[in-house]
């Protein structure tokens, strides 16, 4: 089941004395948080409009509407900001939002359960899908057509074909 609300940023410590805050974005493009309009808390009771934002080291320095002093900014520290899933534009063919994939059931070609999708990673060498099996440690698999031939978000499942592994020489097993 895809998430209905998606966390796009977290408010951090205040920056300066005029109400600016550090904003830690979770979007692919850090400045994309400006494109989604007002951002709300998870319960939807409070919303914040980002007025200005500039990039700093690993985060943004942003001003929020109605926050004019450092004391106001300090009170917001740690608040996570969400948007509705509907606000995201439709992905291109063959692309999937991480938020849509996380939580889907992982099954094999015979429709037997393997586990569920825990996370999607990218460490610079292709997307990796992390599966939490029914028992035991998690599996890290390449997100390719060969290993993940079917992604059915509507049905809430991904089909996984576990790849064969060629064992290397484990240095821990070698005679020293």
């Amino acid at each position, binding site marked *: 089941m895809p998430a209905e609300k*998606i966390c*796009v940023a977290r408010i951090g410590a205040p920056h300066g004395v005029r109400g600016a805050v550090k904003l830690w974005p979770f979007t*692919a493009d850090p400045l994309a948080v400006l494109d989604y309009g007002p951002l709300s808390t998870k319960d939807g009771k409070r919303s914040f409009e980002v007025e200005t934002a500039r990039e700093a080291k690993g985060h943004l320095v942003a001003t929020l509407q109605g926050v004019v002093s450092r004391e106001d900014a300090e009170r917001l520290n740690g608040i996570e900001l969400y948007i509705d899933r509907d606000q995201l534009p439709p992905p291109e063919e063959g*692309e999937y939002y991480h938020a849509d994939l996380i939580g889907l059931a992982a099954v094999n070609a015979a429709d037997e359960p393997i586990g569920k999708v825990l996370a999607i990673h990218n460490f610079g*060498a292709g997307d990796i899908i992390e599966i939490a099996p029914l028992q035991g440690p998690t599996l890290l698999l390449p997100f390719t057509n060969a290993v993940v031939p079917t992604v059915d978000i509507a049905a809430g499942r991904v089909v996984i074909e576990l790849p064969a*592994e060629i*064992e*290397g*020489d484990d240095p821990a097993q070698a005679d020293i």
Partner: protein
Amino acid sequence: MVRSVWKGPFVEGSLLKKADVARSSGRHDVIKIWSRRSTILPQFVGLVFGVYNGQKHVPVSVNEEMVGHKFGEFSPTRTFHGHSGDKKAKKA
């Protein structure tokens, strides 16, 4: 200090053999390796290696841009778990 050019790139010998086996098999096998210090060579392009990070073997799909780098660069030993945000994944 950089490595002398006359020595050539360092690659664990066993890794070359495993790459040959994977390439000849024609399947999408993952080659489990522990040698994070080995250099990625042009003949590894298109193969998938499972590079050990101290806990797990992280899948590394080798492409042309990765040639000359070390395997360990693509298998971080410390992971940050953040929110997914609007990030997208594309099937290769």
